[in-house]
């Protein structure tokens, strides 16, 4: 049940989009945009040496966005039958009638992008070898990882989740201003979550890998990391409430960074839903930290030459030396602020209209090794897992309160494991108190891709007993 690369030929989709564009002839609308996506997806789950599930899909659809008297309307359909597409256009027009007019509405013009078109990045978005891996090879990769994990440590009692999925994805965007762009992407993603048990105490830990094909997946290191993360917290206890320095590993740090990411989009700022409102050119971090959103980095998993409404993507310096330099814009929010689009219109599928979102959003790594940072901490808490990030962090008010698990650091070395404590602060205070960043940058999928090295934050309230 593997996907065939020939099933998707991009000329076919472009032709479909062109055909659809003819259906707008004679319609009383000002602008339209046709967004088509098609994908072939395979997913495999393995449990206890056998295939738990194997699924395959070949799917496509079209999203229609129209503007009429500065009002926006959207409709989508998972069929290319002409009469159905006509109904879909009708529905988009009907929907526009119910919306409010807004002078900044409309599809992007060519001169509204901050960045030049980077066509070269297209070559980094897919692997020619993608279709060379058979379903059996992928199944065996998972089986090998399961076996390797169990062998590494007696305390591993099994797998909670072990899955592989890959997608061949094609996008076409065509609009009434003459824009016509297409894109081919491949992706492979692997996720492992292990269960460890010792003396009635249970703990879980995960690892993941991604690439344009599964070729680079290193089974040993995936197993090793999940084993380490699941066993290192066994026997963890609650501690007394206190304040101390905390060290976030790259995965945990990027979860915190994703809260900052959601407050840095121009949409949330303009609507008064961001704690960063009115803070352009303010020093947010005490240290000289750089944070970028790079939509065209070669190894970036959210990289693309153009965004979800066809505007060019590029590298945006969001924080420079700790100072907030810009928000992230799509075309609508850029017009509102008299700016240019940073190419941050995004959408998860044709089933939704574009909205502002991050691409590859990351903290520039420092030069110091994380072990070296830890060796200099007398009293600290090394956090490897946070829970409740979605419920405990409020990007509007800045309140932050999440559950944490990790290891206490005493006199520069790791001591006892800790769980069931919470850390509470507010986001601006959190940013201010970051003291060091490590050299171990790592990306994590979260909306777009968020990346961070290990970070050290001084004086944070930890509550336990």
């Amino acid at each position, binding site marked *: 049940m593997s996907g065939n690369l020939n099933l998707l030929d991009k000329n076919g989709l472009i032709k479909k989009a062109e055909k659809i564009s003819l259906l707008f002839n004679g319609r009383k609308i000002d602008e339209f945009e046709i967004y088509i996506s098609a994908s072939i997806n395979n997913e495999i789950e393995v449990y*206890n040496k056998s295939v738990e599930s194997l699924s395959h899909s070949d799917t496509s659809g079209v999203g229609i966005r129209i503007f009429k008297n500065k009002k926006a309307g959207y409709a989508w359909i998972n069929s290319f039958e002409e009469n159905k597409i006509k109904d879909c256009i009708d529905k988009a027009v009907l*929907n526009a*009638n*119910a919306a409010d007019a807004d002078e900044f509405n409309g599809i992007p013009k060519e001169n509204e992008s901050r960045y030049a078109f980077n066509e070269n990045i297209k070559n980094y978005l897919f692997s020619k070898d993608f279709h060379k891996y058979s379903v059996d090879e992928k199944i065996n990769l998972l089986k090998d990882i399961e076996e390797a994990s169990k062998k590494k440590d007696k305390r591993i009692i099994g*797998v909670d989740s072990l899955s592989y999925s890959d997608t061949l994805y094609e996008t076409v965007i065509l609009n009434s201003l003459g824009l016509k762009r297409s894109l081919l992407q491949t992706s492979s993603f692997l996720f492992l979550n292990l269960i460890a048990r010792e003396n009635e105490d249970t703990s879980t830990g995960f690892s993941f890998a991604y690439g344009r094909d599964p070729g680079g997946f290193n089974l040993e290191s995936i197993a090793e990391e999940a084993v380490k993360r699941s066993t290192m917290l066994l026997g963890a206890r609650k501690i007394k409430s206190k304040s101390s320095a905390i060290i976030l590993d790259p995965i945990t740090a990027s979860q915190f960074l994703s809260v900052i990411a959601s407050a840095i989009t121009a949409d949330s700022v303009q609507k008064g839903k961001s704690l960063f409102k009115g803070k352009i050119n303010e020093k947010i971090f005490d240290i000289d930290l750089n944070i970028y959103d790079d939509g065209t980095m070669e190894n970036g998993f959210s990289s693309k030459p153009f965004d979800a409404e066809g505007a060019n993507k590029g590298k945006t310096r969001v924080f420079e030396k700790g100072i907030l330099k810009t928000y992230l814009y799509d075309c609508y929010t850029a017009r509102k602020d008299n700016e240019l689009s940073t190419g941050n219109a995004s959408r998860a599928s044709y089933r939704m209209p574009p909205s502002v979102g991050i691409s590859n959003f990351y903290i520039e790594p420092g030069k110091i090794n994380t072990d070296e940072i830890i060796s200099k901490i007398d009293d600290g808490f090394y956090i490897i897992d946070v829970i409740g990030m979605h419920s405990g962090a409020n990007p509007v008010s800045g309140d932050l309160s999440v*559950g944490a698990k990790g290891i206490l650091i005493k006199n520069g070395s790791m001591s006892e494991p800790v769980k069931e404590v919470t850390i509470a602060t507010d986001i601006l205070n959190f940013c201010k108190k970051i003291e060091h960043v490590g050299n171990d940058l790592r990306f994590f999928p979260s909306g777009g891709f968020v990346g961070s090295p290990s970070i050290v934050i001084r004086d944070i*309230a930890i509550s336990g007993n």
Partner: protein
Amino acid sequence: MISKNTVKKILNLLLKSGGDFADIFIQSRISNNLRLDDNKIENVSSGYEIGCGLRLIYNDSTYYAFIDSIDKDRLIESAKVVKSAINASKKVNILNLENRKTNYRTRIFNYPNLTEPEIKAGYLLAANDAARETSTKIVQVTSVINDIQEHDIIANSEGFYSENKSVKTFMAANVIAMESGEIRTGYRSYALTRGMEIFLRKKPEDIAKEAAQIAVKMLEAVNAPAGTMPVIIGPGFGGVIFHEACGHSLEADAVVKDASVFKGKIGKKIASECVNAIDDASLKYHWGSYKFDGEGYPSKRNLLIENGVLLSYLTDYKSAKKLDIDISGNARRQSYRDIPYPRMSNTFIDSGKEDPKDIIKSVDYGIYAKEFAGGQVDPATGDFVFGISEGYIVKNGTLCEPIKGATLIGNGPEVLKKIVMVANNLQFSPGFCGKNGQSIANEVGQPTILVSSITVGGTEI
């Protein structure tokens, strides 16, 4: 949408290389989403989809494929792909498809898809005005009305055929209040498995007003205390604690994988005597209700915990078979694109005997957690976290000042044993639950309860 004969033919084709079980899930769905933000109706969107999911189960393995079509030839082609994945000795042949019966009957008066988008836009604008009129401190209102109209046909190799038609309407308001640099938010949602008539029972204005009142009240919030203390959990959405801390671990797929703290605990005492918990997908018109589940089994009421003793898990076909227990009618799927898994529907702690006022009176020092911003749990360990979005300090048996930045953190099984009082005021609250990448409609519920001690994460140590 498709003839019974074709369905039977596809099922037989799916099982041609053998297998234990096969099913077909055909779905057509119309959805509409309206969103008001920043005083404007900014987004009105509609979607139409039709598709089909084909599933084959053999031993412990599931083989699945879906297509965006119900075209007979494409279904046949897809069924051939699925069946080619196995070569089993066990053969099943379906001779007849019998209509599955259910007692769950509802009536829809006002189909949302036939309601002009302007009418829904009018509701949102009225909600916006009502929220802003509540207080001059209101600085932003975001409100949505989403509806779904769906028609499913589910048939399986056991010879059953089920047909489901349902309508769901959802409204929510998120309000931001600001005063001297402090920003607080308030959220309220209202949703039922029925049509636009839901707004005859509760006006959009009232929902937005309630959200606005929470946001304004929270402006007075003081920093939450940190430490371990008694916690009163309010009725309705407070039930999310049971959903997260207990419900997920009762989903039988977690039990099969030894990833549940409740594995091997059937018939054992897992909670205080005063705890009775139920999952009931057949509660008429409730947000998490359905006629048939994602595998076509009729919805029913399942008693999960009685007087603190664990009675049953929530199952789908595969997990029920594996554990050799009954199918509970809890197989759910987000759409035809997804494999069904055991999931909760309307899950709640049942009403007890206490007067909610007496519960507050009984606490010398603790907190009252009324609303949560959501939660998360690791089903393998039962460790959970809930963010409190509306909470108060309780001193000497009375509710005092509101608190901000508070989180409850603990372990599900431990908390269940620490529930010491259960009030008589059962309420429900609608929401969405995510699992295995699928988001589905869920309702949580409970009366006011008292937990003798939970760790409160706050900033005041």
